[in-house]
């Protein structure tokens, strides 16, 4: 299983690139339409087209990726705790957080520097807020959230060790409630009774994703029992994965219609939560199934944090260069998307390889974690 988790990490980082490439795809489709058609923007004529649904199917498929990262991180915390200790050591947690945050701060500065070069100034408190909320780029909310989970883990590990089932049930119910609360944000419903707790669903807060990390820790402590249970229900998880995947596609279209808007920014729904849970359980249950491209994807998995930090920049450069120099490609998603995927993966890998094979190697951990 340990080696399969490295593979899962590789699949998850490839999915993250796909996900952010689809975001640029939607921008090209609706906000940059005037670059290849004689229309004013935003223009939603392509809503409901084959290209639109193609992007939506990809976006929906990759939903389990962030849960997978959190699951693996939780699993590792369980490994670092061991069999005999009551909880994980604070020294381990602080070192882990330090190794996450140093490259994160560096890449946040890199991503903010174009704005800074264009004359925008950042005060200390604003910069701190950007770091704490992961606003340097869309993908970065994950790092403050993971940091919070690491910092909290020594406190709740003893409980998970003793009462895994109860903790998972409690956290699972909490996550479902958070999922329900998210619908009010998606649909812009202003319910006074919920206004005081709506902040709990902010993407950078641990509350929105605590289940996956807890699930990983519990799995780390009770692997054998959980694997047996998941194996018994493998067909149920396979069916659940397919049904919730398709349901998620239809649900989003329904929510869009219900909102009365042309466009809704992507948010995870309750159906997505069930889809991710079924998919992860299925991955654990299908332990004996041979995985394709295991070595290559595992190698990518081993570099996932570096790719995660740098892929946004690569995608942004590729999308903007296309916008300026080859705008006709923006109209052809079957060409634009593979272009973004390749640049989003190969760009970071080249950068990682350059650092790894040069005298800069000693600074690798500071740059890519």
């Amino acid at each position: 299983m340990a080696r399969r988790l490295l593979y899962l990490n590789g699949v998850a980082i490839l999915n993250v690139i796909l996900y952010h490439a689809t975001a640029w795809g939607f921008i090209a489709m609706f906000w940059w339409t005037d670059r290849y058609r004689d229309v004013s923007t935003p223009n939603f004529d392509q809503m409901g087209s084959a290209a639109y649904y193609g992007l939506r199917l990809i976006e929906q498929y990759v939903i389990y990726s962030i849960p997978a990262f959190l699951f693996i991180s939780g699993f590792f915390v369980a490994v670092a705790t061991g069999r005999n200790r009551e909880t994980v050591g604070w020294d381990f947690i602080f070192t882990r957080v330090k190794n996450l945050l140093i490259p994160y701060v560096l890449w946040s500065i890199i991503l903010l520097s174009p704005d800074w070069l264009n004359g925008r100034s950042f005060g200390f408190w604003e910069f701190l807020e950007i770091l704490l909320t992961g606003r340097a780029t869309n993908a970065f909310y994950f790092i403050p959230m993971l940091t919070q989970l690491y910092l909290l883990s020594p406190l709740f590990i003893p409980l998970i060790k003793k009462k895994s089932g109860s903790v998972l049930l409690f956290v699972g119910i909490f996550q479902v409630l958070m999922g329900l609360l998210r619908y009010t944000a998606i649909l812009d419903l202003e319910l006074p009774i919920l206004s005081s707790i709506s902040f709990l669903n902010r993407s950078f807060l641990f509350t929105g994703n605590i289940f996956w990390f807890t699930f990983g820790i519990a799995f780390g402590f009770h692997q054998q029992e959980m694997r047996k249970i998941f194996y018994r229900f493998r067909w149920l998880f396979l069916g659940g994965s397919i049904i919730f995947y398709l349901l998620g596609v239809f649900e989003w279209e329904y929510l869009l219609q219900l909102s009365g808007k042309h466009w809704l920014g992507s948010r995870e729904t309750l159906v997505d939560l069930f889809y991710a849970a079924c998919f992860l359980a299925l991955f654990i249950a299908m332990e004996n199934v041979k995985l394709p491209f295991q070595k290559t994807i595992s190698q990518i998995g081993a570099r996932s944090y570096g790719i995660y930090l740098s892929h946004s920049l690569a995608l942004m450069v590729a999308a903007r260069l296309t916008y300026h120099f080859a705008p006709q490609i923006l109209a052809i998603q079957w060409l634009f998307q593979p272009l973004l995927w390749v640049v989003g993966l190969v760009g970071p890998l080249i950068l990682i390889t350059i650092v790894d094979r040069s005298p800069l190697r000693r600074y690798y951990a500071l740059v890519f974690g």
Partner: protein
Amino acid sequence: MDRKTALTQFIKQEIMRNPNAKLQENDDLLSAGILDSLAILQLVAYIEESFGIKVPDEDVVFENFQSIRALAQYLDGHN
């Protein structure tokens, strides 16, 4: 090359990315931040490929991966 030396070399080369790094066999690999989640998974893959020893999931724990010495002792017990 004995296992301890091979493990030390692998950790220095592939995980610390510094062949000249100072690494003692009793150094705490986890608390010092040398091994993170992915590095442990890489190390398991290396052990299985290079030494032909399958590391069961339940053995991927702090006690066995805390230091090079602990890891070598664990592997010696699985000959």
